[in-house]
């Protein structure tokens, strides 16, 4: 029904009370939001934070202005809700510190505990790099955009995007080295 409608058109309809338009947007973004939350909060809290985000979207739908892209507005809410989550938990560190097994720092380890440790380890590193590095990584991994699509969205050349991406991965690697 809304296959060809842009996000912004759907958001406008939703603002005017069209429930189906809202749920079309929800279906479009559930996976991406869920992936973004997975990258930033502990696994046991991912579902609750995802729910809080979508409830916040409904509550603040009227504040969305057509001048900006819908996904920019949505991801601002995602980041705000994640920040609120950590504020509520009263944590300074964005990811709970864990006693990492020495072996778990080797990203090639395979036991279940090691996998859990590695997730927290890489999550902490990702959350510690500058926002623009996090964003390009999330666009590729969480949103599933190709490098060409990312270049289109950011209004940059493909070469510039790939260069930024490599530097972002390098920054995560450097962060892992510091921990």
């Amino acid at each position: 029904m809304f296959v060809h409608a842009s996000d912004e058109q759907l958001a406008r309809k939703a603002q005017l009370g069209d429930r189906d338009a809202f749920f079309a947007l929800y279906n479009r973004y559930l996976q991406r939001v869920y992936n973004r939350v997975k990258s930033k909060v502990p696994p046991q809290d991912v579902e609750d934070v995802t729910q809080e985000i979508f409830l916040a979207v409904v509550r603040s739908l009227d504040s969305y202005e057509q001048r900006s892209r819908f996904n920019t507005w949505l991801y601002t809410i995602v980041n705000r809700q994640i920040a609120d989550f950590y504020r509520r938990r009263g944590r300074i560190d964005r990811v709970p510190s864990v006693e990492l097994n020495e072996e778990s720092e080797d990203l090639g380890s395979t036991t279940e505990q090691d996998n859990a440790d590695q997730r927290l380890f890489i999550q902490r590193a990702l959350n510690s790099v500058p926002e623009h590095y996090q964003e390009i990584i999330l666009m590729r991994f969480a949103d599933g955009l190709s490098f060409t699509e990312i270049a289109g969205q950011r209004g940059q050349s493909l070469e510039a995007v790939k260069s930024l991406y490599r530097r972002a991965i390098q920054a995560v690697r450097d962060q892992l080295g510091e921990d």
Partner: protein
Amino acid sequence: MSHDTRKDEQIAAMTDAILANQTSDTATHDQELGEVVLALQKLIEPSERPPLALEDRLKLALNKEWQTRAAVSQTGGLPKRYLMAAAGIAAVFVAIIALSLSTQVTGDTIIGTAVGGTPDSSLVVLFSTVGLVFVGALIYAFWRRR
């Protein structure tokens, strides 16, 4: 192609391959960066759908929230920008009426009213002020509500 550009291309190609679940030998590229890409993929698992239980719970919660929103809308909860636009238009109308009344009162041709006596220009000012204050109060009330 510069050394950095070649590395950019390699890491991008390796990421594409890993995310497409194709085998990519990280050892042939920059191994450290390759491990980071693999670890990010394990962390985010982009192709993993949210659990069905979450989707069901979310839909229930969102339906409930949507009904609450709809109820608020029915009781006058129009989008903020429409309310602001309406208030703005009302303010302009009040200003125009006040201005035209003032002009009539101060003009030479109108010196009285049908019921006799000279209209008091202070009344015009008073009504205009009340109108503007009313519109201002409306704007403030809507702003507070939002």
